[in-house]
Each structure stands twice: as structure tokens, then as C-alpha cells.
């Protein structure tokens, strides 16, 4: 059996459950809310929403981001402890979506935050969110 690197040992312990912090603008919360209900129930899969970015492993960003809110998002990103993953949820977050011609909406999220994964859709399918989170687990599993 191959020796595990210290980094993987740490990550394996951290990854038992994924703690997420939500930064949701406008209808952003509706995009994750099917996951909270009993049909998809995210807690079964170890996704737990926390109230403080300092406890979080994953930062979910949803809804359109404005000139004002993106600064708050950046501050939240800075407060999230390493190792951290940023997941952009929904088309407004990624490209501005239907607000593509709004003077006040962020059009490229990656210009402001290092985004790990995008989940497209309006709203994204809950399965897509699970797949994204599954990829985080998989990434740790495949680490050397």
C-alpha cells in the first residue's frame, strides 16, 4: 500500500462532511432550497450549512452579484479558512444571466474571485449540485 502524503491525511479528516457557507443574492437561495428539503436532503450527503465563513470548507455563491455585494463576497472569501473551494451556482452568478446588460451587475465572476467550479442552470438541478460536491470528495480520494 502506498504511503499517504501528510496533505491527504489532513484532507481526509476534513472531508468527512462538507461545510458550506452561502452567499446568496436575490433569488439565489431558491436555487439551493430544493436540496434542503426532504426529497434531496443535502445533510444525508454530508453537506451542512454553517453560519460563519470561518467554519466553512466550501463557499456557495448564487444570484447576480452587484458592484456592492461582490466586495462583501470577497471579504467572505478571505475569511474562509484554507483549504477552500468556491462554487458558483446558477447562470446569473456566472455571466450576469438575464442581467447581461445591467450597468450594476458583475459579468465575469472569475475576475473577482478564484472560482473552483461553475454549476450552470437557472436554477441548477439539485443533482448537478450533488455532482459538484461529489467531485470535491473524489478529488480528495484521488489525491496522493
Amino acid at each position, binding site marked *: 500500500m502506498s504511503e499517504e502524503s501528510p496533505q491527504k491525511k489532513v484532507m481526509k479528516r476534513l472531508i468527512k462532511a462538507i461545510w458550506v457557507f452561502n452567499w446568496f443574492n436575490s433569488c439565489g437561495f431558491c436555487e439551493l432550497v430544493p436540496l434542503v428539503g426532504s426529497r434531496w436532503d443535502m445533510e444525508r450527503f454530508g453537506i451542512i450549512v454553517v453560519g460563519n465563513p470561518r467554519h466553512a470548507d466550501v463557499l456557495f455563491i448564487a444570484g447576480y452579484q452587484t458592484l*456592492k455585494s461582490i466586495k462583501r463576497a470577497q471579504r467572505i472569501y478571505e475569511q474562509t479558512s484554507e483549504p477552500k473551494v468556491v462554487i458558483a451556482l446558477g447562470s446569473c452568478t456566472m*455571466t450576469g444571466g438575464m442581467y447581461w*446588460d*445591467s*450597468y450594476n451587475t458583475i*459579468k465575469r465572476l472569475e475576475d473577482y474571485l478564484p472560482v473552483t467550479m461553475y454549476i450552470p442552470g437557472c436554477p441548477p438541478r439539485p443533482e448537478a449540485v450533488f455532482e459538484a460536491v461529489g467531485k470535491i470528495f473524489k478529488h480528495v480520494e484521488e489525491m496522493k
Partner: protein
Amino acid sequence: MVESVREKEIIENITKNFKVDVGIQRERRIWVKSPSEDLIDLCMFVKNKLGFKHLSALSVTDWPKKGEYELTYHIWSYDDKILITIKTMVDRENPEIETVSKIWGESSQIHEREMHELFGVKFKGNPDLSPLFLEDWDGPAPFRKDFDWREYVRNEYYSKDNDRESAYFGRD
């Protein structure tokens, strides 16, 4: 049309003291057109003498052809249950007007702050006109009718060379 006695009383009171255009739009709705230099006196009068204690809203309408902004103050009286609308015009290129925040306090302060952000109207004497939402904004006042936001967004956010974003150019 039913016009109650109280509305006629209010109109008489105002026309006695000010040179303004007045009218009863319908029951419990009065409008007044006033020149901008009389606005503060008129507002003081309707609040202190006629009991219009609540400034419900302050809005700005842009009239680019006339070269003017129309400021509209909607003021409610709890005693009489009457809404009075005071309208006044200011110059569009250099919109300046005295603040009413000394009369109605906080509620008018935040309305003026918003109108300053969206239309660029300077309310002289308002203690805080910092932007509500448009932090670091350096474009023109966004709610002006001659502000072409689509053009602004193209120049500011998109690039023609980008595969996806090139689709945003050349359509209106």
C-alpha cells in the same frame, strides 16, 4: 365627483399664502405645482400648518426634451387621510435643490440619497449623499434617459474578441 370640505380648505389655505398651481385630482388626492424656490416654505407650511406629517415618497422624472427634472414629493396626512403631491421643476444639467431633510428628517434623507445616486440631483444641506448601491461608480447618473446603459456595459464589461461575449455586440 365628491370633494370633501377639508380638501377645499387645504387648497384655499395654500393659494392664500403661495402663488402655485393647485388641483384636486380626485377624492383625497391633491396636487400642487410650485416653483423650486418656494418649495421649502411650502413644505414647512403643509407640515406645520396643515398636518402633513409623513413624506411617503420622493421621486424624480426625467424630461430630456424640456431639459428639466420634475421632482415629486408625496406627502400624507394621518389626520385627514389625504395625499398631497408637490411637484417642482429643476434644471437637468445642474440639478440643485434645497433639502427637505430638515423638515421630515431621516425618511426624506434616505429618499434624497437615492435620488442623488440615480439622477445626480444635489440636495443642498443633506448631511449624507453617499451612494447606496453604486459603490465606486464613475459613469453618468444611471436613471437619466439619455444614458445608454447597453453601450456603457459593452465598453465596461465585455470584449469583442471573446467568443461568447462577441454575441452581445451589434444587437440592440
